[in-house]
Structure formats: structure tokens, C-alpha cells
């Protein structure tokens, strides 16, 4: 398999040699393959955000090395040679609508491609493509992004990153503050990109999102990787979940309620559908 991202013994210290020095990552090693959908969970301050910022060079490891494709980043890497990396690794921050600044939606989405060296017509084409992926209608292209609703602004901001055509997309809590519909729409977009081969790395608190989307979940605790497994394997360890102040998804909660009542399902269900399926299965087994 194609190892796309490799973190090797990465340490990161904020403000080294100052009284405010803070070790954010300790000996983190991870390998991420092409096309994965990985979720990163953990308490606030567990190092999740620091970890993802390592991958597109916004932060450089104090010790160790990060490799993305054939680009290596360590503490010797020059800040100004990261353009190629940043194009490859798109990053969508919490409340990404905060980055909007251009007069029109189209110009704002084309901003990234232009910075990465595209000429204006090419950037425009990419912007239009990205806007159609996120479902922003043509009518809005020439509007100011600030006239849009919260959900639409969020989509425009996400299009701004997608337009750079990244191979890896990092998202830090992309759905916070949206209503349920807006949230589902955004998750659908992310899923579609993943199906087209884009590697997704998503920081989130929402375990339902983890259960229903990710094929792999990493739990961060005090700057270390404390677990790296499939969501189902993670949910089989309720103690680990509780220790990291995480919540069980509703379907998993039902599973444990049933265990409590002496009913053991064959597998931990990740969706409402799976709950019903397994109960049906179990009942036919009983009979």
C-alpha cells in the first residue's frame, strides 16, 4: 500500500526555552495511507490540532520528521519552501468562514489557486468546479460572501480549499455551529471527495460522525497517540472512551444498555440500521 503521510517520532514544543514552554506532541509516529478517512479525537488540548498542523507545515516538528509524499519536513525546513506541500495538503480550520475577505464569492474561492501559481482563467475554472462540488449555485458567484447565510459561507470557505485540488484534506471540526442539515451537507461533500480518492483527516468531537464516516480513528491524549484503530474497535473499549472525555455514539450506547440487560449482540452497531439488523439477526438465532 501507498504510505502517503509518515510521521516518525515527532515531538513538538510550543515556545521552547521560555517559561511558557509547552510540550504539545511526544513521540508521535503514524502512517497514513492514500485514500483513508481518518478521524482524530481527544480532549481539548490533547494535541489534535497541533498534530494536523504538522502535516501541512504550518508547524514544524521540534524533533523527528514528517514525510508527505516525497516532501520531508523537520526542524531544518525553510518556511518559504512549503508551497508545494501546502497545495498538496488542504487545510480547513474551525469556522473557516473567518478566512473570507474578497468582494465576490468567485474571487475568494480563486484566491488559493492564484497563490499557488495558476493564471486567472485557470484559477476561475478551478473555483467554479469547487463551488459546484460544494453546491453553491451560480447565482451567488458575484455576490459578496458576507451576504450569504452561515451554512453557505461555510461552503464557500471549504470551496476555497478544494479549489486548490489537494490530495489530502485536513478538517478541524468542520461542522461546529451549523444546523443539522448544514452539517449533513458538509459531511456528504467530504464523503464524496474521499470517494474520489482524496485522503481525509478530520479532527472532531462528534462520535456519531466518527462512527458513520471514518475507517480509522486515532485518539490523542496528552500529546501522545493513545489508540489507533477502527471506530468499532475503539467503541469496544468504553473505558478508553470515558478516560478521554469522549461520548459513545447513540447506537453504541444502546448496545451497552442491552449488554447491561444481559443481551449480547454479535457486533457493535454503528448506525440505527445496524441496530435493527443485529436485533433481527439475534432474534432469528434465538428462535
Amino acid at each position, binding site marked *: 500500500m501507498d504510505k502517503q503521510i509518515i510521521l516518525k517520532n515527532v515531538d513538538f514544543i510550543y515556545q521552547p526555552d521560555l517559561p511558557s514552554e509547552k510540550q504539545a506532541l511526544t513521540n508521535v509516529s503514524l502512517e497514513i495511507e492514500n485514500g483513508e478517512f481518518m478521524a482524530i479525537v481527544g480532549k481539548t488540548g490533547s494535541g489534535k490540532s497541533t498534530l494536523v498542523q504538522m502535516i501541512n507545515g504550518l508547524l514544524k516538528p521540534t524533533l523527528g520528521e514528517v514525510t508527505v509524499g516525497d516532501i520531508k519536513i523537520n526542524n531544518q525546513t525553510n518556511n518559504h519552501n512549503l508551497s508545494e506541500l501546502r497545495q498538496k495538503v488542504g487545510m480547513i480550520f474551525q469556522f473557516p468562514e473567518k478566512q473570507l475577505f474578497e468582494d465576490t464569492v468567485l474571487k475568494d474561492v480563486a484566491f488559493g489557486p492564484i497563490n499557488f501559481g495558476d493564471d486567472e482563467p485557470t484559477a476561475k475554472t478551478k473555483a467554479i468546479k469547487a463551488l459546484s462540488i460544494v453546491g453553491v449555485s451560480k447565482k451567488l458567484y458575484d455576490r459578496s460572501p458576507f451576504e450569504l447565510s452561515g451554512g453557505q459561507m461555510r461552503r464557500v470557505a471549504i470551496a476555497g480549499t478544494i479549489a486548490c485540488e489537494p490530495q489530502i484534506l485536513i478538517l478541524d471540526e468542520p461542522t461546529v455551529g451549523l444546523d*443539522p442539515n448544514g452539517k449533513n451537507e458538509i459531511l456528504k461533500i467530504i464523503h464524496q471527495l474521499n470517494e474520489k480518492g482524496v485522503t481525509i483527516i478530520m479532527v472532531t*468531537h462528534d462520535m456519531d460522525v466518527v462512527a458513520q464516516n471514518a475507517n480509522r480513528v486515532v485518539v490523542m491524549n496528552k500529546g501522545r497517540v493513545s489508540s489507533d484503530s477502527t471506530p468499532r474497535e475503539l467503541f469496544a473499549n468504553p473505558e478508553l472512551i470515558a478516560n478521554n472525555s469522549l461520548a459513545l455514539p447513540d447506537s453504541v450506547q444502546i448496545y451497552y444498555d442491552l449488554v447491561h440487560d444481559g443481551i449480547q449482540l454479535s457486533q457493535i452497531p454503528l448506525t440505527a440500521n445496524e441496530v435493527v439488523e443485529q436485533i433481527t439477526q439475534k432474534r432469528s438465532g434465538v428462535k
Partner: protein
Amino acid sequence: MDPIIKVSNLSFQYDDEDASKILDDISFQCEKGEYVSLIGKNGSGKSTIAKLIDGLLAPQTGTIKINDIGLSSHENDREMRKSIGLVFQNPDDQFVGATVASDVAFGLENRAVPREIMKSKVEVALKKVGMWDFRNEMPSSLSGGQKQRVAIAGAIVLDPQILILDEATSMLDPLATKQIHEVVNKLNQKQNMTILSITHDINVTAKSDRILALNDSKIIFDGKPSVFFQKHELIANMDLELPFSEKLRQKFIDTGYDISDQYMDDEEISQWISKLF
């Protein structure tokens, strides 16, 4: 007994936006000690209602009465605000004081409450939200959930009869959200405080006494959560999601199970499943 909040035929539109009405002939009321959830899409006018009730905006037509006192002149606004505490969405937008304690005291300072009384009231309020240990911290050093708890303390320090939460947990993680709702539930149950919680998180509405659903500038539902959750079409039209237990119940029905036609919460539904075996 008269309702504590009485809204009659309220209409409102912002003058600078395109002229559509944000609220159109809305009437509802809340009884003392009730926990009411006000839900609706983003931009459906939920926050406008909060501001109107608190007198931060003036209604164009209709009346709002708090404890049977109408909102009309500016003086009344101040009088009315004494009985209402308001907590907003963004934790960063509510801090005035440089420490947690002095921020909580802000509302008391505005009413020229003597310092000794202030000190004891601040202590009581901070203890209620579990933030007394943080009294000397700078607000900027707190987490989002802690900030919102301080904001609640800042509101309840004035002993309001009504607490309005304007999407107070929409920017928080699930754990912090849970903690905030625990605090709010306690205020509702132990002190009989009337709660008006504005939200688009349907899961947190399950524990409230009543749901008011706002759509297209009108109230389209006013009743018990268990009744509301069964109105699947209505919920879908409002861009909301069904609570998990209701989704599950629907799945059971679709698969041909003989399940109650009433809403059940997570606990009830897992009990029902247990009985299948």
C-alpha cells in the same frame, strides 16, 4: 396565574435588510418554571425573539409582557431586564471584566449594588455553575465551556426569573454542552427558574417541557417534545434531524416490528428491545 412571558401578535423586520418579515404575527406564552425550547433553522428569527423579549430590539407591532408588565418605554426595558438573564452564543463576546469574579459582578455594578452584597452574590452564582475555583482567572484562559458557565453565572447573579439561552452551546463540544445543560436543568428544577432555550440541537430539547418551533417567520408547532418528535415531515422541512431513538423506532416500524406508536427516549427504547428476548 398569569404567564411569566406573554407574546401577542408580534411582528418584526429589520429595516436595512431586504424587506421580508423575520417574525410574522407570533403569539405564545411561557408559564413560571417552565423549560421551553425554541427551535428553528439558522436565520429563522430565533435570536430576534430573544432580543425582543429582553428589550434589546423594539417590536414593530404586537406586545410582549413579562410578569404582566408591558414593554413600551425605555425605562421599562431596564426594569424588565432585571427579571431576565441572557446568555449568548459566542463565549468570547460576553466578557467585560478582567477576572471571572469581576465579570460576574458586572451586572451588579450596573445596578450600583454595594460591594459587600456583590461579593456574596458573586460567590453564590459562581458556586452554582461550578466555577468558584476559577474566580481569579482571566476569562481568556478558560475553555469555551467554562466561559459559558461564567456567562450563566453573570446572568443568574441578578436573580432573574427567566433565563434565555441563545444557542449558548452551539460552539461547544459535546461534553461541555452536557455540562451546561446539567447546570441549566438544575436551575430550572431547584430554583423554578423559567428557561427559554434557543437551539437547533434537537437532542437537547428532549428534556424540555415544551417545544416552540419557528419556521418561515411563524410558529408552526407548540407542544410537548414527544409529540413534536413524531412529526417527521415537519422536522425534515425545518432542516432538523430526528432524535436517534426516534430514528431507531422508525427503522423498527419499517422492518415490520410491532412497536409503540409513541415517542420513546433512548432508555425506553432499549428497555423495549430487552423485552423482545
